[in-house]
């Protein structure tokens, strides 16, 4: 995007976050590092997709970014300023800049509030964005902006379909004129035809308003169509990142290659099934007890002794983009 400034809107520096668990009633307290050192940046007007399977820590990243969760260590920088541990007024100001849209608009919209109340709530909390006498007009404008009938402002969430509710969530996020919207599986629960509507809307909003997206998803098809840059997450760390086309055309990490190979797409009827398909064996290891060394080695067909002991860093390894693998697949023949 053209309007990139030098300082990214969002920067994560070696973020470590998660939750504390306890084994049994009196058991030892455990720190579960769902996110084990993630660095990432999002520039103004840019879309960065964080893609991974369940339990990889992608939603924990989202929660840390919007300050719903305090990281164990590392920094969340907004406009170059560390915002971890902000309180009171400063935290409130931050929340104006960063909004979160969840997967399930059934759960995230208060069923007892009308659409007008849901959208204008933010203006009550953050005075000065829109004066009260302008609320109705602004609600109507926002509804129209997200493709809903402005005349439906007095309706309740249950009177809308899933796709329409997600539009309400987006209108609500836009109400505070944020610079970054974190979308956590925001289109995953929607039917394909509606999903495409919401993606198209998000893209138009970005073009018109310059908002940046940190888009968290498990859907590799969506990522390819929507992302400027991609970071692939596996068990708490980023294993590979780069421009979308780089990742899709020149994936270097075995996990990325397996993910791409596993994603079903409409073109697959042509392939004689299993032609070059990479099917990983076994399950994703538990983040409670990640394997030593490279966290992917238990499922990796290329793993060697080094991988079992030494954790690879996310580095540019002559691959054109950073990859966290001791043996990246620079040679396409060796990769298959």
């Amino acid at each position: 995007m053209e309007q990139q400034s030098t300082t990214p809107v969002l920067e994560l520096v070696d973020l470590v976050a998660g939750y504390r668990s306890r084994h049994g009633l009196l058991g030892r307290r455990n720190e579960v590092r769902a996110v084990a050192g993630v660095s990432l940046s999002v520039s103004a007007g840019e879309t960065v997709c964080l893609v991974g399977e369940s339990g990889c820590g992608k939603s924990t990243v989202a929660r840390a970014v919007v300050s719903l969760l305090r990281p164990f260590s590392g920094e969340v920088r907004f406009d170059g300023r560390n915002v971890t541990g902000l309180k009171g007024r400063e935290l409130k100001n931050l929340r104006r800049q960063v909004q979160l849209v969840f997967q399930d608009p059934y759960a995230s919209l208060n069923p007892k509030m009308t659409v007008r109340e849901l959208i204008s709530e933010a203006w009550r909390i953050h005075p000065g964005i829109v004066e009260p006498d302008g609320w109705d007009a602004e609600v109507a404008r926002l509804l129209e902006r997200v493709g809903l009938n402005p005349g439906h402002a007095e309706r309740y969430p249950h009177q809308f379909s899933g796709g329409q509710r997600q539009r309400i969530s987006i209108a609500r996020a836009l109400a505070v004129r944020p610079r970054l919207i974190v979308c956590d599986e925001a289109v995953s629960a929607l039917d394909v035809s509606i999903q495409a509507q919401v993606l198209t809307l998000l893209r138009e909003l970005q073009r018109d308003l310059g908002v940046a997206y940190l888009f968290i998803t498990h859907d590799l098809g969506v990522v390819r169509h929507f992302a400027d840059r991609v970071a692939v997450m596996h068990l708490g760390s980023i294993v590979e990142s780069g421009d979308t086309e780089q990742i899709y055309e020149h994936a270097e990490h075995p996990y990325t290659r397996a993910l791409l190979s596993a994603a079903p797409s409409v073109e697959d009827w042509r392939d004689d099934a299993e032609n070059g398909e990479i099917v990983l064996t076994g399950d994703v290891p538990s983040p409670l007890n990640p394997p030593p060394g490279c966290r992917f080695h238990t499922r990796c067909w290329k793993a060697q002794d080094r991988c079992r002991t030494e954790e690879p860093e996310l580095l540019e390894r002559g691959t054109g983009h950073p990859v966290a693998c001791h043996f990246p697949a620079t040679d396409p023949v060796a990769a298959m």
Partner: protein
Amino acid sequence: MSALLEVTDLVVAFGDVRAVRGVSFSLSEGETLAIVGESGSGKSLSSLAVLGLLPAQARVESGEIRWAGEDVSAMSERELRALRGEQLSMIFQDPLSALNPSLTVGYQIAEMFRRRRGLRRDEARRRAVEAMTEVGIPDAARRVGAYPHEFSGGMRQRVMIAMALALEPRLLIADEPTTALDVTVQAQILRLLRHRQREGLAMVIISHDLGVVARTARSVVVMYAGQAVESGTVADVYIAPAHPYTLGLLDASPSARDSNREIRPIDGYPPDITALPTGCAFHPRCPFARERCRTEEPDLREFAPGRSSACHYAEEVLARGAAVDHAGA
């Protein structure tokens, strides 16, 4: 040769609301058919009706279901029970809700061998271990004593498949079998199902995901608002869709393989089945719609051998679709 399963003009209703409105499909021994559609399209109800497993409020209002030439509605409860499980079985999206949480997985699989095959307890257990091994559950001899919650989502779906296939049915109905699974686990399950297809198992796979359909099925029925709007082989339908809804679905489906194709949404929302539009149910969302579509409901008609579309202007859609490369043909 008669079809293994033949469904003709099936109508399923909740009270006086018809959720499935005259659906027909058939499949032969060893064949895989996909029923694809979005939520509320009636795709799951159609297959539940086949098994006689409709929810309590729903009933088959009309239509015919034939199994190997025999009318299922004329079968006794005893014959139906023999059909389900022995000849025809089903797996669902959520294996956790289909398994009894208080019994070990091994017990639940072994129970089928004891009840249906009259095997002794130890023999049934041995067969359960075999069945688990066959679907790729590692260390089955030990895992046979574990409870459903001790398995991951992918392993639970394997357990379901082991149970569904234990009695060597001729047809497996798989309703969104991988929707709840991670993509790498989904690939494992789809591969497992493909291996069974190759061994001669017929399948009906119900999915909202055109990619999953492309990987598993040879022919496809596309459903919209309770009706089949298009059918044909997956290759034919994906290369040149003949119904505007299919065309729209393909255009809206993001692909991890193809970066050149722009995804395009379908305008509007699926209709409420209690208040369907007049004429063609798709007409309010259809870029091809004309006056006739608002008044006259199109029938599913065979416009070429093996290809049907429920659109007044199927030939026009076909021509338009063929001009765009949808599925990387």
